């Protein structure tokens, strides 16, 4: 029988271990037909600002911004849902604009300013949007929540910048904050728990307070 100790390895360690195995295997197969200099160019040094702090990383070019944040900088607040741009759980701000961190490479963000949920606010000093999500029960399991909050903060800025949406009636009139506008503009953030109506309430409250 296996000792109970062997089972105390966390799911996280397992993921890290299996990822390492994959890396070793692919490097090994590459060495058959590539020189070591070519292999070296398959990683790039990147320097960017994350939540106000200058960070430098040497990354395999394949590393998405999402994996750089989670696996290299250990900012695990940003979540991986689908890894294909379909759910919005990975939403972060790049130079103030909301993006899907899973569909962009870290190396493409050299010199940029990245903000994750950890950078918006912390326990004890929550961002108003974080507080509003808590107050309005804008979540159940919480998995989509960091993405929802980052997305909604940037979304309100988009309205302020007068960027129209699919439901905007008059393209030449100033953009408005209405429940229909919020729903349309937040459609890139899926909530499996269906907390949508409370999410809209939380966002509406913050939008109203700002106006």
């Amino acid at each position, binding site marked *: 029988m296996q000792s109970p100790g062997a089972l105390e390895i966390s799911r996280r360690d397992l993921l890290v271990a299996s990822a390492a195995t994959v890396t070793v295997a692919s490097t090994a197969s590459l060495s058959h037909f590539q020189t070591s200099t070519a292999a070296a160019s398959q990683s790039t040094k990147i320097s960017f600002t994350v939540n106000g702090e200058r960070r430098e990383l040497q990354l395999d070019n394949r590393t998405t911004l999402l994996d750089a944040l989670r696996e290299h900088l250990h900012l695990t607040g940003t979540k991986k849902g689908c890894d294909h741009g379909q759910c919005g759980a990975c939403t972060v701000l790049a130079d103030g604009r909301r993006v899907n961190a899973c569909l962009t490479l870290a190396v493409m963000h050299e010199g940029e300013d990245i903000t994750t949920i950890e950078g918006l606010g912390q326990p004890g000093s929550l961002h108003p949007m974080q507080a509003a999500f808590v107050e309005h029960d804008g979540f159940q399991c919480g998995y989509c929540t960091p993405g929802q909050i980052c997305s909604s903060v940037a979304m309100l800025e988009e309205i302020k910048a007068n960027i129209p949406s699919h439901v905007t009636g008059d393209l030449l009139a100033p953009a408005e904050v209405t429940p229909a506008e919020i729903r349309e503009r937040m*459609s890139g953030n899926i909530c499996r728990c269906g907390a949508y109506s409370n999410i809209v309430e939380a966002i509406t409250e913050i939008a109203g307070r700002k106006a």
Partner: protein
Amino acid sequence: MRAFSYERASTIEAAAKAAASTDGAKFIAGGTNLLDLMKLEIETPTHLIDVNRLGVDRIEPTPEGGLRIGALVRNTDLAADERIRRDYAVLARALLAGASGQLRNRATTAGNLLQRTRCPYFYDTSQPCNKRQPGSGCSALSGFSRQLAVVGVSDACIANHPSDMAVAMRALDAIVETVRSDGTTRSVPIADLHRLPGDTPHIEHVLERGELITAVVLPKPLSGKHIYRKVRDRASYAFALVSIAAVVLPDGTGRVAVGGIAPKPWRDEAAERELPNGARAVTAKLLANARPTEQNAFKMALVERTLSAVLAEARG
């Protein structure tokens, strides 16, 4: 994802040259389509040329009274531009009907035009697909084809082009400007950019290896009502089953391009001349050579009804 080397290009010429001289090189712009496909190893470039810092990200007036849209202008910024909203509303509407706020913030004008099909078998690497693996067969013909094309198709492939933006650009007769690796430039009318599948569905457009899109030029604005209507399985964040980009004049004449039904934005000038005679007359001509499957035959009626709604809105 397969390993690749990476370079950040700072001039148009360098980007085009690098792409032509490096085997397996591809440009990456927003990355929202390319990276998706690289993760599934459907796209396996060995070298990526990042074109995000080429500086072709402005929208400028042309001497002819139109607009030149830099290839790297993001979908959000194009839709929000005051001139686009005022003079090319059909394009602003098409952009806003596509993808999500996050994706539009990254997606670029050139990348949107060259995005690849959403055929479920193209994405499923365990299934035969002539587009992904030439000669392997088409799984969609006898499979799940509800979303796919009804016109312009071949026995080899019935995939449709997923872009909303391109449908409006087709109605507007946009022109795609490129630079080839030898530094020469050319202008390709959007009507000629995408190829029909024929026997070679893996060849999707007329651009050469290393040919870089630098801009899309819109001719001077068209008067009339600008309408983009998209029909899809959910109200937001879904690809079109059928979409219609139209510019309709008070006398009932105008332009119509249709999305979701063909391997490229579908427009037929002869069908368009039937506009004053109503949606049925237009659709009959537009879909005369259609070859729907049992599962997507509903698109035939859907095109007519969507156009009918568009024409009612234009009159209203």
